[in-house]
């Protein structure tokens, strides 16, 4: 199956909004393509795909700039953990193409539902890196206003946010808003009940949600083969009556094309879709993880030549859109983002203890008021 631009909804919605997908042909239409969609290979060579157009050079240059910044953010965040400025950082090093594409395919009115690993996607959507990192440096669970950039708080419990994404989309549909919701999760999260409930709800209510799985091959230490024996994670879509597609998760061009098509299809009333990106987590799960216990150095090395930045760079240089001077500029821009992040994180933030009692209820209960007084008197005593 392909989620190609302009493709009409698979079937006319029936009276309850559910497409009739019973026929064999309809099932074929829902299945992912035989191999992950790729538009630019690991050597930086572009190829023609029967269903997806290669994005224009400008769009790819923008994406490349984001990739460079994303990589720099990952490196900087790791360094800040080593310096004790953040408790932990789940790096998306190696997955930056997925992160960048997830933000790039959305319009202002759309929503992004990220996980703990998707900090770069959240920043690519325009959220200030410092506000993103409050989750991990420990002064507040979510440091940004979700409505400002239409980015939900980064979810820590797995797959739960997929249902919130469905709810936002359902409300948007009832209110007649032009909103598409892109919801992110990992391969491990696809085993959770909420993943299945979310897909089913989105399909039954025919909602504009794109579920985007970053299959980075491991859920902490558990490899994909212990997680699922489905032909691919994208194949799960057919069971819910929505199209599934798989894409090379280290090819930002393919990601922009496939995710872009799924988002536009949803926007046009085509309903939900599932996209699985094949990628790899180059670093441990978090800084607290020992990845040598469950995977070999050779396996990691195998993925190095497939790096999402390298192939985009080669392709853009071939086109003449990128040269040494432009690269220096991009590196300097990324460095500026990293420096601001570093300075912000190096400033000590002392949260107000009284904030403990804020935002628990819209009106403080008498019990919380009493406890706030207790803490106040402890503070006053010093």
């Amino acid at each position, binding site marked *: 199956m392909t989620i190609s631009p302009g493709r009409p909804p698979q079937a006319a919605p029936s009276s309850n909004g559910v497409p009739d997908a019973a026929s064999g042909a309809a099932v074929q239409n829902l299945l992912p393509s035989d191999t992950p969609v790729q538009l630019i290979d690991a050597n930086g060579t572009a190829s023609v795909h029967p269903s997806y157009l290669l994005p224009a050079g400008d769009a790819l240059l923008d994406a490349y700039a984001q990739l460079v910044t994303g990589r720099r953010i990952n490196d900087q965040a790791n360094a800040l953990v080593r310096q004790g400025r953040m408790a932990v950082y789940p790096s998306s090093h190696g997955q930056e193409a997925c992160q960048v594409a997830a933000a790039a395919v959305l319009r202002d009115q759309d929503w992004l539902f990220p996980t703990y690993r998707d900090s770069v996607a959240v920043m690519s959507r325009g959220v200030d890196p410092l506000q993103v990192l409050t989750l991990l440096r420990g002064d*507040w*669970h*979510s440091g940004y*206003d*979700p*409505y400002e950039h239409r980015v*939900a*708080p980064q979810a820590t*419990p797995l797959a*739960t946010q*997929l*249902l*919130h*994404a*469905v*709810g*936002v*989309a*359902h*409300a*948007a549909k*009832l*209110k007649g808003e032009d909103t598409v919701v892109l919801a992110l999760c990992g391969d491990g999260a696809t085993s959770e*009940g*909420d993943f299945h*409930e*979310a897909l*089913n*709800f989105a399909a*039954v209510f025919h909602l504009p949600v794109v579920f985007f799985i970053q299959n980075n091959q491991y859920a902490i230490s558990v490899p994909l083969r212990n997680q699922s024996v489905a032909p691919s994670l994208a194949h799960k879509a057919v069971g819910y009556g929505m199209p599934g597609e798989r894409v090379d998760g280290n090819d930002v061009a393919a990601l922009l094309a496939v995710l872009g098509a799924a988002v536009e299809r949803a926007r046009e009333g085509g309903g939900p879709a599932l996209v699985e990106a094949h990628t790899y987590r180059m670093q441990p799960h978090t800084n607290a993880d020992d990845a040598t216990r469950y995977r070999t150095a050779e396996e990691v090395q195998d993925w190095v030549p497939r790096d999402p930045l390298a192939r985009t760079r080669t392709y853009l240089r071939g086109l003449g859109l990128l040269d040494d001077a432009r690269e220096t500029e991009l590196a300097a821009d990324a460095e500026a983002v990293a420096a601001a992040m570093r300075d912000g994180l190096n400033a000590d933030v002392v949260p107000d203890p009284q*904030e403990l009692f*804020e*935002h*628990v*209820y*819209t*009106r403080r*209960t*008498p*019990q919380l008021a009493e406890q706030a007084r207790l803490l106040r008197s402890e503070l006053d005593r010093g």
Partner: protein
Amino acid sequence: MAATSTQARPAGVPAPETDGGPLTFAKALNAALADEMAADPAVVVFGEDVGPLGGVFRITDGLTARFGTDRCFDTPLAESGIMGMAVGMAMNGLRPVVEMQFDAFAYPAFEQVVSHAAKMSNRTRGKVKLPLVIRIPYAGGIGGVEHHCDSSESYYAHTPGLTVVAPATVADAYSLLRAAVRLNDPVVFLEPKKLYWAKETVDLPALRRAADDAVRTGTEAAGGIGTAAVARSGTDATLIAYGPSVSTALAAAAAAEAEGRSLEVIDLRSIVPYDDASVDASVRRTGRAVVIAEAPGFASVASEIAARVQERCFHSLAAPVLRVTGFDVPYPAPKLEHWFLPGVDRILEAVDELQWDEGDAGDEGAVETETRAEAGGPR
């Protein structure tokens, strides 16, 4: 709001109850939902079988016919899905009211309730408010099979961020539900199943006017959330109850009166927020207290109330605060449930143990308390 009475209603759709006279608890809840939906187009109702069937207890009867399938609809059978979707809908400007079909069937949604609904406002520093109501037909006394009779209030009451409401009267069923829908926080709304068919004569038009006024003036919490009610005045001891136990406490108080003892009954109405002030005032006056709840007593709401009263009213107390609760066992099969449920006799026995013999209360009371502790378990 006038919308209720002026809105055109399709033919064949029964009008919500409007005149005075006897009304069931179930109908009162139904009228509350209909009135909130009429007052605010953002209110949406969904869950399992709540559409054309009107819910297995008919609390949503007629809502789909009157408001359409966008406003009241059936979902796939998935409680976490229902709850998680409600969180997202509330994030995006709607006011979902979801029905969990029975108490124990809400547990698949527990993660969404306690980790997400309860915390969203807090984790986003108040940027995201979640006005949503989780209606749960709850507790026993109806001869139901297992998983249909749990008292789950302690799980929810233990979770900061959740408002937990349990009405005990037909009037409160109406008023508290309307207030719950208007509250800008997630509310777990516990509906005692055994009361669904209870009838009372209530002045619904008057309640409706009051609730509509609250809508108009934006007073979200009007209707009694956070304030306990004195269900019966008395002078000798205070019975503290909520939800299904209030009627049992009232029956016990009536029986005690025949024996010459005047018992006050406090109906908490909401468990969270908890009304210390009203409870304390009553206990300080009477000097004795018994807490009554159906749920197993260990680590329960009843335990919390007993501890609070003991801490806050110690110098007014003539006897330890006692608890009369369900045993610490899984909810029993129908032929055994009457042994489990705290009934009038058990309440009266507890009242008898409140050290009434002023002369030698101290010693004897202490011995008795110890014996009870050795016997173990709740009363």
